C-alpha cells in the first residue's frame, strides 16, 4: 500500500506533501509523489521544474520515509492521471492540496480537486496551505479555521 500525493509547485502543494509525509509515517507506508501536465501549452505553472523537484526530494529525504516521484505528461488531466494511478498502484490514501475558488472560476475552468474527490475509489485527504492567499468575505477565516500545524 502507498500514500499518493498530488503535487503542484505552490504552498498548497507543499502543504499536501507535508500531510502525506505525516500520513505515511503513521501508516508505515511509502509516499508516491505525482506531478502532471497535459503538456500542450508552452508554459504550465503546475508542472514542477527541477528546483521544485529538488525541494520535494530534500523534504522527503529529511523525513526518512521511502518515496518515489513521478512526473506524467500524457495529454490527460491531472484528475484522470491520479485516479488511474490510485487504482493501478494499490493506493491506500490520496492526499491533495485545495484552495479557495470562486463559483464562476469553477464553472468556467472546473475543479481538479472536485474531480479527484469524486473519482478516486480510496479515501482522499484534502489539505489547505498554511497561509491562504485569498479569503472571501462569505467564507472568512472565522468560519473555516485554518488547520493547526502538524
Amino acid at each position, binding site marked *: 500500500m502507498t500514500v499518493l500525493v498530488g503535487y503542484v509547485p505552490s504552498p498548497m502543494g507543499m502543504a499536501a506533501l507535508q500531510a502525506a509525509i505525516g500520513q505515511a509515517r503513521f501508516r508505515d507506508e511509502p509516499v508516491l509523489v505525482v506531478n502532471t501536465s497535459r*503538456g*500542450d501549452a*508552452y*508554459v*504550465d*505553472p503546475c508542472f514542477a521544474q527541477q528546483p521544485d523537484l529538488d525541494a520535494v526530494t530534500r523534504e522527503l529525504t529529511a523525513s526518512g520515509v521511502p518515496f518515489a516521484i513521478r512526473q506524467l505528461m500524457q495529454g490527460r488531466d491531472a484528475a484522470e492521471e491520479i485516479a488511474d494511478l490510485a487504482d493501478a498502484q494499490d493506493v491506500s490514501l490520496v492526499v491533495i492540496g485545495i484552495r479557495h475558488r470562486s463559483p464562476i472560476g469553477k464553472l468556467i475552468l472546473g475543479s481538479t480537486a472536485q474531480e479527484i474527490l469524486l473519482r478516486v475509489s480510496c479515501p482522499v485527504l484534502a489539505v489547505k496551505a498554511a497561509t491562504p492567499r485569498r479569503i472571501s468575505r462569505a467564507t472568512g477565516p472565522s468560519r473555516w479555521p485554518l488547520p493547526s500545524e502538524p
Partner: protein
Amino acid sequence: MQNLHSLLDGFAHVATPMNLLIALLGVTIGTAVGVLPGIGPAMTVALLLPVTYGMEPTQAFIMFAGIFYGGMYGGSTTSILLNTPGESSSVVTAIEGNKMAKAGRAAQALATAAIGSFVAGTIATLLLVVITPPVVRFAVSLGAPDYFALMLLSFVAVTSVLGASRIRGFASLLIGLVIGVVGIDRVTGQQRLTFGVPQLADGIDVVVVAVGIFAVGEALWIAAHLRRRPAEVIPVGRPWMGRDDWRRSWKPWLRGTAYGFPFGALPAGGAEIPTFLSYATEKKLSKHRDEFGRGAIEGVAGPEAANNASAAGTLVPMLAIGLPTNATAAVMLAAFEQYGIQPGPLLFERESGLVWTLIASLFVGNLLLLVLNLPLAPAWARLLRIPRPYLYAGILFFASMGAYAVNAQPFDLILLLVLGLLGFGLRRFGLPILPLIVGVILAPRAELQGRRALQLSGGEWHGLLGGWVSGLIYTTVLVVLFWPLVRRFVLRRRARMVTE
C-alpha cells in the same frame, strides 16, 4: 518639403478615433502573435485579410502595419523569458536575453528590447520617409525588362542567401512558381495546370495559399508534435533600466538600426542577417566582452533594434517597387491586390493618401507598442499558458472562414486542405516557406513583365536585356548563383598553391 506635407496629412488621417482604435487593435494582435512561437505576423495578416474586406483599405493597412511591427516587439519577450524565439528575427535576442533573465536581469533585458525597438523603429520609419520617394522616382524610369530582372533577382536572392540549403530553397520556390501559374494564361488564353476544373481557371487565390501554407500547415505540424515538456517562465516585474543600462544600450541601438534598415530594404534581406551581424559587432566592440555568453545587455539591445529597423526597411521595396523581401510583406502585397490596388511605383501617385496614412500609422503604432510592451510584458508572457489545442482550433476556424470568404466556393476549402498538407510536408522536410510565398505572389507579375518585354522586342531574346539596370541585375544574379562554385574553385587553387 512635399513629403513632409504629405506625411502630416497622413498623421491627420490616422488621428481619427476609429483609426487610432484600429492601430491599437493591430499592435495588440501583433504583439500577441509575436509572443506565441509558431504564429507569426505573416500568418496573422493572411488570416485577417478576409475579415478586413468590410473595412476601408486604409484602415486594413493600418491594422496590418500594426501587426507587422507588433510581431517584431512580441518576439523578444518570448526569447528573453522562455529561450524560445517567438519569431525567426528574435533568435539572436535569445542568446544573451535569456542569460540575462536567468541572472535576474529580465526586467532590464525586456526594457532595452522594447525601448531599443522603439528608437530603431522611429529612426527607420523616418529613413523610410526620406528614402522611398527617390526610390520611386528611380523605379518609374524602369521598364518591363528591368522589372523582370528585379523579380528574378528577388527569386534567386530569397532562395540562395537565406536558409541553410540552396536546393531546398529552389525546390520551395519552384513549388511556389507552379502554384502561381495555375489558371488561364492572360496572353494566349490557354488553360494551364487546371486539369479541367473550372474553379481553377481563375488561378489559386493567394489568400488560400498563404492561409493553407502558414496556418493549416502549422496547425498540422503542431498537432503532430503536441506533447512537449512545459518550459519554465522566468518571473519578471515591470521592465526598467538603470543609468548604466542606458549608457550601455544607446550605441548598440543606433548601430543595430544602421544594420537593420538597409538589409531590410534589400531583396532577401529579412531580419535574420542584420540581427546576427549586429550581435557579432556588439560582441567585438563591447567594453564588457567577458559578459557575452553570460547575459550582456548590448547583445539584446543591438539585435532588437536591428530587427525593428529591418521591418521598416522591408517597406521601402514593397511600397516603391512592389517587391516583397519577407513573408509578411509578401502577404501585405497580396492584400494590396485583393483591394484592387496596383502595387509598384505608381502607388505613391495614385494612392498617395493611403500610403502616407500607412507610414504615419507606423509612427503611431511604434509609440503604442512602447506603451503596451513596457509595463505589460509579464502579462504578455501569460499568453504562453494557453493550451495549444484551443489556440489552433481558433486558427483553423479563421483559416477555413477566410478561405471560404474569398470566393464563397466550397472548392477553396479542399484546396486549403491540400495546401495545408503541402505546408506540413514543407516543414517535415525542412523546406523554407518564404521562397514559396514569394514565388506564388511574384510568378504572375514576373511573367507579365517578362512577356511584355518580349512582346516589345517582337519575341527577340535581347528584349529581356533592357538597359544598364537589367544588365547590372543579371550580373548580380549570376554572381549570387555561381558564388559557391567560384568560392570552391578559389579555395581549391589556394589549397593547391599552399601544398606546392
